[in-house]
């Protein structure tokens, strides 16, 4: 028996696998038992109601996709009235992702959504589509820290900070939010990208830029998760290009305590179950008693293949 449980910023999870915000919705419950996953993470809610980005919203690549959805949101009241009840019947902790245009508004929505049934508030300080050119709070350590401090003052729930990968020094942002009191960091959101419809000399996305996600981004985001895990003491949740247990193991070994599966849920709705089962099978095969022992289990390469290196 492998102990699959982990503790992330004050919350006990039965296993380290959960969806990325915005990559699951009520429909998932029709496909699988949400009691099996580590946490439920809902789509980011904003204070205002918004429609999101104009279509087309998606460009496909061989090993990833570029999506500009924006945050279609119906506001916190709707969330409490309509979304929360869907998930009340599961014993899986619910992580509510929030975003807002100002520090004040981050505080207000956090307070409002600290409702019964919400276990954690995840701060989406990183969504690349909201502002032009993708500028976001998460690009600035100071601004990120301000958001988290205000959120911590507005709730008794643990606060997770979801970082943007569109930065020079992601470890610095992680340290700033840790200092500001974040209980965990999620690393990371989609990377800002774009595509051109060359036949028509126009942007392929209605929003021009979008978030690049899926397997092909894993090497880049994994490197960031490694840098973050070495910089902070709070748990790190890896999110970027996880499609299989093997991919999740990479994140755990570089120092993550848990992982979020995103785009892959769109291709195989039960992807998270395969990831959970695969991690457990790996632990069994390798004699790892507790999944949390995998966190940071990567060791330096022994005996370089060719002896001395330059």
């Amino acid at each position, binding site marked *: 028996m492998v102990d699959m449980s982990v503790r992330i910023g004050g919350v006990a999870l039965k296993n380290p696998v959960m969806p990325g915000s*915005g*990559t*699951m*919705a*009520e*429909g*998932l419950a*029709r*496909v699988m038992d949400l009691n099996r996953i580590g946490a439920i993470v809902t789509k980011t809610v904003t204070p205002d109601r918004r*429609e*999101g980005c104009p*279509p*087309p*919203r*998606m460009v*496909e*690549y*061989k*090993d*990833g*996709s570029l*999506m500009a*959805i924006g945050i*279609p949101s119906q506001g916190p009241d709707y969330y409490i009235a309509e979304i929360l009840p869907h998930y009340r019947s599961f014993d899986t902790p619910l992580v509510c992702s929030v975003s807002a245009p100002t520090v004040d508004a981050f505080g207000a929505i956090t307070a409002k959504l600290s409702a019964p049934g919400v276990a954690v508030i995840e701060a989406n300080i990183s969504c690349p589509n909201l502002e032009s050119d993708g500028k976001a709070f998460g690009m600035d350590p100071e601004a990120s820290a301000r958001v988290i401090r205000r959120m911590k003052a507005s709730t008794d729930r643990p606060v997770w900070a979801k970082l943007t990968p569109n930065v020079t020094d992601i470890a610095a942002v992680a340290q700033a939010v840790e200092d500001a009191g974040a209980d965990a960091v999620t690393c990371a959101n989609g990377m800002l990208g774009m595509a051109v419809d060359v036949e028509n000399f126009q942007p392929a996305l209605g929003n021009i830029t979008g978030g690049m996600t*899926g397997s092909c981004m894993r090497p880049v985001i994994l490197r960031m998760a490694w840098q973050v895990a070495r910089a902070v003491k709070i748990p790190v949740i890896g999110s970027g290009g996880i499609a299989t247990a093997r991919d999740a193991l990479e994140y755990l070994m570089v120092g993550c305590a848990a992982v979020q599966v995103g785009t892959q*849920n*769109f*291709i*195989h*709705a*039960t992807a998270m179950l395969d990831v959970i089962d695969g991690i457990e099978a790996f632990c069994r095969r390798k004699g790892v008693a507790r999944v949390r022992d995998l966190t940071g289990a990567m060791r330096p390469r022994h005996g370089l293949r060719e002896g001395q290196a330059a």
Partner: protein
Amino acid sequence: MAETLCRVLHNDWVNDTYKHLIVDAAHGAARAAPGQFFHLLCPVIGENAPFFRRPMSVYRIDKAQGRLEFLYKIVGRGTTTLATLAPGDELNVFGPLGRGFRLGADRKHIVQVARGVGLATLAPVAESAGRLGIRTTAILSARSPEHVMSADYLRSVGAEVVAVTDSEGTSDAAAVERRVRSLVERDGGDFFVTCGSNRLLRLLQRLGAEYGIGGEVAMEQPMGCGNGMCFACVGSFRNDEGGTSYRRVCWDGPVFDLQEAIAWST
């Protein structure tokens, strides 16, 4: 709703651009309703590497034999590799998904107008209507008589079929309008269903409003998840407040109220 590995039973050309696919899918077939769709994991072969699944309406559902049938047009990467499947091959099928047609038993005579891939989507409506004892007239619009598909099938389930084609000059808007008016005025047509053409959608919206006749339309939009999770498939629809809002074609549709839909210029 589930992800199922099905066995391909048949995958042959219907004409120069369409193929007819039959798979063994007891579970899916048992649950699928007209207008719903399945999200197919098309194979990856060389440069044709579809990343997401591809949505396909159910064309026929054979509950007795546990078979699902699709009628599809080869247009790009996914449909190109789908076309390579041979009997015996496996196909990963996710569904049934979406909201199908709502055929109230109080309908008397359904007028369906379809073009292109819309034929596939509307075929099970005729079959269902037949079982419910509702009269159906299917106006099938196509480039040429060879491209009029499934007329025999529609007749076999009891529908009256009117084929109109570009090559015969019978498919223009005015001609179709005369047909539809006559079906309403003389033959008691009291419900419109359509799929596959913005021009025909606009026509039926106008006539539906004029005659006070309700209807439904099956919409298309490129899809990510097909299951309401990614919001990639939105299009604009008229809302209650007199404006428009985005709705998910995969989740709120693909079948929408005729008058709420907005013909997207594609």
